[in-house]
């Protein structure tokens, strides 16, 4: 598996898109830091970019990589290698190279600015953790979509839909439901509904850490009320981990059954 991971990783690292992705974060965080001169503000702005952009790039990149390397995958399948190793290796290659782009793109400017001497280093770390989690979650979802759809156009369509749903529509539908049922006690419903959206969960996780109640919103406030800050963070981290494991498990299951 490690060899497949190595090849996928270096294949992606050499690709132009990884650089574009990396440079985008580098530029964005440099501009935010050196023009704004405030670490906490920069983290909040980056949060809003990261929770939308990382899932988008994760799904598109994942689907694209899978379809692009289909021929190579078929070549590998005839070799004495376990199927699981092939797909796990490719997935980890995509997820780690995406994570690395974010890590370096955000990390270099922050380190230059003097992050390590400041007291917001843990806030920044949480931002990175969330970005890594989202990269792993959405590449796993992308691999699921690509494995179940041989038609590339359909695959890309579903990928965009999943992203659109979780990043935009989910919140809207959720708000409408809240307004519609406002006479009822909705705390538990809200709590559960938040767990089903990794993007929401990531947002809450960072805001809990930053302790900015004004930005928490309804879901975040309930989350904080119910779990408190520490337990709330742990629960959201745990659920994010489940969000990685479940799609990954399904991906390996589908890959095992699939005819090539």
């Amino acid at each position: 598996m490690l060899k497949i991971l190595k090849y996928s990783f270096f294949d992606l690292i050499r690709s132009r898109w990884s650089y574009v992705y990396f440079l985008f974060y580098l530029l964005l965080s440099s501009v935010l830091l050196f023009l704004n001169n405030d670490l906490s503000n920069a983290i909040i702005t980056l949060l809003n970019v990261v929770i939308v952009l990382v899932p988008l790039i994760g799904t598109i990149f994942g689907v694209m990589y899978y379809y692009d390397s289909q021929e190579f995958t078929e070549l590998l399948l005839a070799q004495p290698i376990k199927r699981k190793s092939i797909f796990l290796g490719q997935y980890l290659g995509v997820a780690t190279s995406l994570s690395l782009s974010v890590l370096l793109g955000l990390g270099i400017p922050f380190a230059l600015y003097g992050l390590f001497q400041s007291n917001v280093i843990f806030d920044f770390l949480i931002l990175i953790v969330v970005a890594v989690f989202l990269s792993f979650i959405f590449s796993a979802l992308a691999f699921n979509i690509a494995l179940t759809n041989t038609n590339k156009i359909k695959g890309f369509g579903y990928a965009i839909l999943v992203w659109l749903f979780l990043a935009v529509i989910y919140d809207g539908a959720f708000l409408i439901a809240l307004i519609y049922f406002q006479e009822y006690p909705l705390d538990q419903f809200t709590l559960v509904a938040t767990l089903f959206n990794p993007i929401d969960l990531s947002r809450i996780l960072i805001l809990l850490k930053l302790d900015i109640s004004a930005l928490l919103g309804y879901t975040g406030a309930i989350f904080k009320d119910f779990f408190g800050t520490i337990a709330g963070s742990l629960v959201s981290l745990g659920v994010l981990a489940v969000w990685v494991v479940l799609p990954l498990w399904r991906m390996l299951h589908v890959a095992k059954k699939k005819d090539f």
Partner: protein
Amino acid sequence: MVEFKDIQKKFGKNDVLTGINLKIQDGKTTAILGPNGSGKTTLIKILLGMCHSNKGDILVGNSTTKNNWSYRKNIDYLPQIANFPGNIKVKEIIAMIKDLRHQKTRDEELITYFELKPYLDTKLSHLSGGYKQKVNLVLSLMFDSPFVILDEPTSGLDPLSLIKLKDLLKKEQDNGKTILITSHIMSFVEEISDHISFILDGKVYFDGSIDELKSTTQETDFEYAIANLLKNDHA
């Protein structure tokens, strides 16, 4: 020995294989023949574990191929359509597969044999069909495994390369290798193979030597004998 036991495969509503029973003898060259879409490639892919059969079992030696991958260490497989990732060089893909399999190789010898030396630094997407097939041949034959599966090995090859391939396969036969081929070039099949398995409507329709085939169909020419099999069934 490789043994197919009642292999059945459906793609949706399409019954491709409806019960293949076949034994492939060690040290012999068996040709799997059949009309287009008869499931030859599917059968090979099931043998390699790339497709899963709906029913039935395959034994390679004494072990089943289900949930097993290590038996592929002793198999060299030449896929029908050489689809390679386009953006890497010939020598890179050879190095990659060598690294992944970690077995003894004879790639240098085969590269020289198929005259691929000048193309080692060429990207795979820039190669012509024939050269892609040569790369395909090097990739699949370089491990020198005792069991060789060739799916349409002649496609895209010019006459000279075809003769070279035949010579190479004859050498492999002398070394006692078990070879399984599919091809639509009947003269090639006749020259190379000891045994014919003809697949029709998802079943093994004929299984025997070329001489047996000729005497059953009462034809003296191999190509006509095969055509006769097809005609009689559809008459």
